[in-house]
């Protein structure tokens, strides 16, 4: 018996749940502006989240997927990317989308059930949220291949959940990215649940990171509630990817503090107490503690951030609510570049019907 291959998975946490460094920190952690930027982005994300849920509860938004508790991942990813990179988000990446330039109003519009919410003004090349789980990993491999073929120093960044790692598309996407050595970074947001299914019911794999070994890809685990750890890992992976050193997978470990969506009632399948305990790991609490302890974050500054985020979200919500639906014929727009004859006939029929109905 000969040993022919060995593999290791490593885990990184830089700042603990109380905001204390667990090891010497990178320069980033000394950069007050950078830290505040991330904090603010996380607060903004959560403010959006709260407002979205309120809108949904009052019938003014559709079913909504909260990112409560996992803001550090989206934000750590979003800040690490450059505008030239391309994001392929999953449904809880509001934080990353906002940092990329998608507006709050556009996010509301998307979750409000309006196709225009995916036609954001910036970033034009980012993908819309992918709803069928894990089906976007193949797109990420393809988009990254495009960068490679054109010799561009850009990377595709693709996020998904722990549940997504069970799906064939996840694996086929990773495997292709591996064999083509494309500039892609995959982030698994392991929030411990896929609706009611605990992480252990998805797979017997000890870590989700190790799924990358099946694709010959490097990987690591990070504390997904530690925005600094997420960002540092992302920046390193992106630098390597853009330099042609191949794709990478990051498993970011967090916890879904919210119900799966506004259509879910998590109390059916998990104990409130367990969830409560996970609030100790709240990524926002953690970075705030760090700011307060290490960077003299003041009460005034805190209040200013909270207030600014509220104002911003409120204005966006109002702007969203003021947007009338698309005209009815928009149903037929963008099915093809030019409307085929038989579709044109259906469009006419609909318009006639609408006119008749008045």
């Amino acid at each position, binding site marked *: 018996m000969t040993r022919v291959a060995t593999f290791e998975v490593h885990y990184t946490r830089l700042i603990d749940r109380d905001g204390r460094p667990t090891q010497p920190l990178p320069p980033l952690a000394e950069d007050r502006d950078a830290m505040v930027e991330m904090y603010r982005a996380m607060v903004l994300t959560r403010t959006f989240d709260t407002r979205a849920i309120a809108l949904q509860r009052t019938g003014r938004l*559709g*079913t909504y997927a909260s990112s409560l508790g996992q803001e550090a991942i989206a934000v750590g990813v979003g800040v690490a990317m450059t505008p030239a990179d391309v994001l392929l988000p999953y449904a809880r990446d509001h934080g990353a989308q906002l940092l990329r330039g998608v507006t709050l109003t556009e996010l509301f519009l998307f*979750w*409000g*059930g*309006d*196709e225009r919410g995916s036609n954001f003004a910036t970033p034009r090349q980012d993908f819309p949220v992918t*709803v*069928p*789980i*894990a089906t976007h990993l193949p797109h990420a491999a393809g988009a990254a291949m495009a960068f490679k073929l054109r010799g561009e120093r850009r990377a595709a960044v693709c996020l998904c959940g722990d*549940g*997504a790692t*069970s*799906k*064939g*598309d996840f694996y086929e996407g990773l495997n292709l990215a591996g064999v083509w050595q494309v500039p892609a970074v995959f982030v698994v947001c392991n929030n411990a649940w*896929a*609706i*009611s*299914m605990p992480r252990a*019911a*998805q*797979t017997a794999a000890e870590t989700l990171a190790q799924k990358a070994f099946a694709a010959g890809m490097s990987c690591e685990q990070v504390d997904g509630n530690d925005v600094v750890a997420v960002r540092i890992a992302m920046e390193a992976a992106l630098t390597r990817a853009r330099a042609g050193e191949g794709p990478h997978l990051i498993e970011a470990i967090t916890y879904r503090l919210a119900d799966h969506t506004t*259509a*879910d009632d998590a109390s*059916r*399948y998990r104990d409130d107490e367990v969830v409560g305990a996970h609030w100790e790991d709240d990524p926002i609490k953690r970075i705030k503690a760090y700011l307060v302890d290490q960077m003299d974050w003041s009460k005034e500054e805190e209040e200013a951030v909270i207030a600014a985020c509220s104002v911003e979200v409120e204005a966006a919500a109002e702007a969203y609510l003021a947007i009338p*639906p*698309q005209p*009815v014929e*928009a*149903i*037929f727009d963008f*099915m093809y570049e030019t409307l085929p004859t*038989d*579709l044109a006939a*259906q*469009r006419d029929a*609909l318009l006639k*019907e*609408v006119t008749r*109905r008045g």
Partner: protein
Amino acid sequence: MAELTLVQAVNAALAQAMEEDERVLVLGEDVGVDGGVFRATDGLLDRFGPTRVFDTPLAETVVAGAAIGLAAQGFRPVAEIQFMGFMYSTLDQMISHAARLRWRTRGRLTCPMVLRAPYGGGIRAIEHHSESTEALFAQIPGLRVVIPSAPNRAYGLLLNAIRCPDPVVFLEPKRIYRTIREEVALGTAVAPLDSCFVLNEGRDLTLVSWGASVIETMAVAETLSRDGIGAEVIDVGTLRPLDSATILRSVEKTGRCVIVHEAARTGGFGGEIAARLADEGLLFLQAPVKRVTGYDTVIPLPRLEHHYLPSTDRILTAAREVLAFE
């Protein structure tokens, strides 16, 4: 007898099937503790335990594929896919294996499984959660495709689907999961798998529909009856194998037919029915066969969705047009 909604009837049929045959298993994402995202499997885990009801990883291909393996080994798996929009990755397994295992082995191995999913629009859901692509399955030789439109028929059809030795795709119109309550005769399975249901008799016009659209279709029949027009309403409970005899007989009587379904028109299963009329029923036809359907587009997101679904208004317009035809 019990007053049940459609989703409760599904739940009751699952429980009954599990009760009467210990080979019946229930599997799928979140079907266990959670009882399914629509609660169709609610209580089954408690009642039948974890060797009869089990959650699967988030992977629809292997949900279908493992069901095939279980069925070939003599179990009667009933697998749930959370939404029809996530059934597409089961198609390869369903077409290449479920539908063919018996055929391929000349009867040596069989595949008595049911693949259930909620389908259709009208619940203001996000993208991919409102699909009506039943024709994808209904065109596959070897599959049976069943769609109930009321609690009582849902109960009977599902029970028969589970008892059926062939693979069955069972699509549940989720828009009417909880909108109707009906007496359901528990323990009996009166709704056969191979015939259409005539819900209303009439001599002037045949309205053919299935799934949630049956509700609007029946409403139109009622409106018409107030004008003294008798519309025969046929609920195609089983799309495959299709009982075209019932439809032909009706059109022989009425001479006029409107087909109503939520799915996009082109390639929708209404085309198959109209085609059979254009062949075997041509001599009966006194007017063009109209289809009132979803448009040939993606079903819009909630803000425009209601324009897409066949409304009573659109059905009525088509019916009157067909009736006026000379």
